[in-house]
């Protein structure tokens, strides 16, 4: 027993040695990533003076940077906006796309291929191709003049631009489910619509979770659409808000506060990633290609 173990280890060491250059390259790359994120994190707890003299945390942890960023610079506001937009848009995306994906993957009907091709092509369309007419319509309807309608418009657009990706992603999941479930339900007299909501949708749960994580990250980080369509400061989502905040903090010279704001912005997706990185990585390559 003991001899066998020793033997295995010896082989491993030889293998590890052969792989050493690979380890070295990866270590250099990820140390850089850690230094980058780690330094910003430490800087967000230091004073601006310490940042400039390269003595991070010399006077202990300064949580007041976060308090200042959260309240004075109103990171709280843009954070809340993005949270509301992402949660509503992600939920509606599932309600809208899951039925469509189910029908597209299960039934043969005229136009099925056409819709699929349309959705796939839309993932490669540059945003510049859609913003001008949309802005024209929206401005003519006066939607941008009211906070409520403008906010709803933003959510509508977040949903719209993510529909092709979400639908195509979910299609592969429904495609993999066995037809036996629907047949059994049909024999028991369950109408197809009910079968979908009560049986098929819950079974596609892994796919729904993965696609929702992607949608959340996409909407949380969305910049261009929000920049153009969020007409008032109180509607700004996090990415746009952070941009203007950084610009103003450069003038006030509050570097510590700026790094605190940066940390607050990347924290939600980062925390999601820590817990769900395996699922996210499997989703990138497994279910369709991300646009």
């Amino acid at each position, binding site marked *: 027993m003991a001899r066998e173990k020793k033997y295995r280890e010896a082989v491993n060491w030889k293998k590890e040695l052969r792989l050493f250059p690979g380890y070295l390259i990866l270590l250099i790359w*990820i140390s850089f990533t850690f230094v980058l994120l780690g330094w910003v994190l430490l800087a967000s707890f230091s004073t601006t003076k310490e940042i400039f003299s390269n003595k991070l945390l010399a006077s202990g942890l300064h949580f007041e940077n976060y308090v200042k960023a959260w309240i004075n610079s109103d990171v709280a506001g843009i954070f809340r906006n993005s949270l509301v937009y992402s949660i509503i848009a992600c939920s509606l995306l599932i309600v809208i796309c899951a039925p469509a994906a189910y029908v597209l993957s299960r039934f043969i009907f005229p136009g099925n291929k056409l819709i699929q091709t349309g959705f796939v092509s839309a993932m490669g369309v540059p945003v510049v191709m859609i913003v001008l007419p949309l802005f024209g319509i929206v401005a003519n309807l006066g939607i941008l003049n009211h906070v409520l309608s403008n906010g709803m418009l933003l959510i509508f657009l977040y949903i719209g631009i993510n529909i092709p990706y979400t639908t195509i992603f979910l299609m592969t999941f429904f495609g993999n489910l066995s037809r036996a479930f629907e047949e059994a339900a049909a024999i028991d007299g369950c109408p197809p619509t009910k079968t979908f909501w009560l049986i098929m949708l819950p079974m596609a749960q892994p796919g729904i979770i993965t696609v929702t994580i992607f949608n959340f990250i996409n909407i949380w980080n969305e910049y261009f659409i929000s920049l153009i369509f969020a007409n008032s400061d109180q509607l700004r989502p996090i990415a746009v808000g952070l941009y203007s905040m950084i610009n103003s903090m450069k003038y006030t010279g509050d570097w510590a506060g700026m790094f605190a704001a940066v940390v607050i912005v990347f924290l939600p997706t980062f925390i999601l990633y820590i817990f769900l990185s395996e699922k996210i990585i499997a989703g990138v390559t497994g279910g369709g290609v991300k646009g």
Partner: protein
Amino acid sequence: MKRNKGMIIAFLAPAVSIFAIVFLYPIIRTIIMSFFKIDGITDPVSKWQFTGLANFIKLANTSLFRTSMWNLFRIWLIGGVIVMSLALLFAVIITSGIRLKSFFRAVIYLPNIVSAVALATMWLQYVYSPKFGLLKTVFSKLGLTALSKVQWLDNDHKFMALLLAYCFGMVGYHMLIFASGIERISSDYFEAATLDGADKLNQFRYITMPLLKGVFRTNITMWSVTSVGFFVWSQLFSTVTADTQTITPMVYMYMQIFGAGNSVTERNSGLGAAIGVLLSVCVVAIFWLCNHLLRDDDLEF
């Protein structure tokens, strides 16, 4: 199937109608708009003046727009070579049987989930900072005084700085695509090659590379699609509105149509639409080229 007709329509209607409003109608209208002179973006069709290809000709004669296309091309080509090489290298290492594979993979992909604004700020305000920057600190520790004094964000270096920072964030995604492609290749090929005496390098050259053609195609297409929408990074790296070092077509379009920048001489939404059409043509052309140059139909595996 007839029985399900109602269900099919009801299930598809919301997704397809939103798709029509957000994608189909705007795309068609943008293509039409690119052939007209349109003073205001909200103008009704009756006020549009048909000018044929005038918008495209005007763009071709605008030096700032030409610069922006040149910048985009450099980002696509230089950035593409850097990102694809690093991504392929990492993918090969990751799939070579190392320990902590999923940890390495997760950390390399990490920058992709961070908001571009936050990531760009970290690079701008920390890595490239002339006062307390990472590059400055590292280079002066190594005694490379000349390198530590480089102003990474001045006009001579800004483009390279932007490109490096952008590439850093993109490598992870393309690495995942490569790695999943490599993992799909059956290990039988490598075993057979090892028995025949082929070394690792030759195995990579004659087995991995040819079988990855399809994966290369996916990666190049995705890289092109993301590059065309290059906007946030460029906006963050230029403090002035019309910075010729980092301007891209999207930024130019934004300035033309929505910006209150000083460089706007005339408002013409048709020009903005023409930029969109040009970029789409580029994407389609690259897609077509990839499909023809990187055919893998003759390979079965």
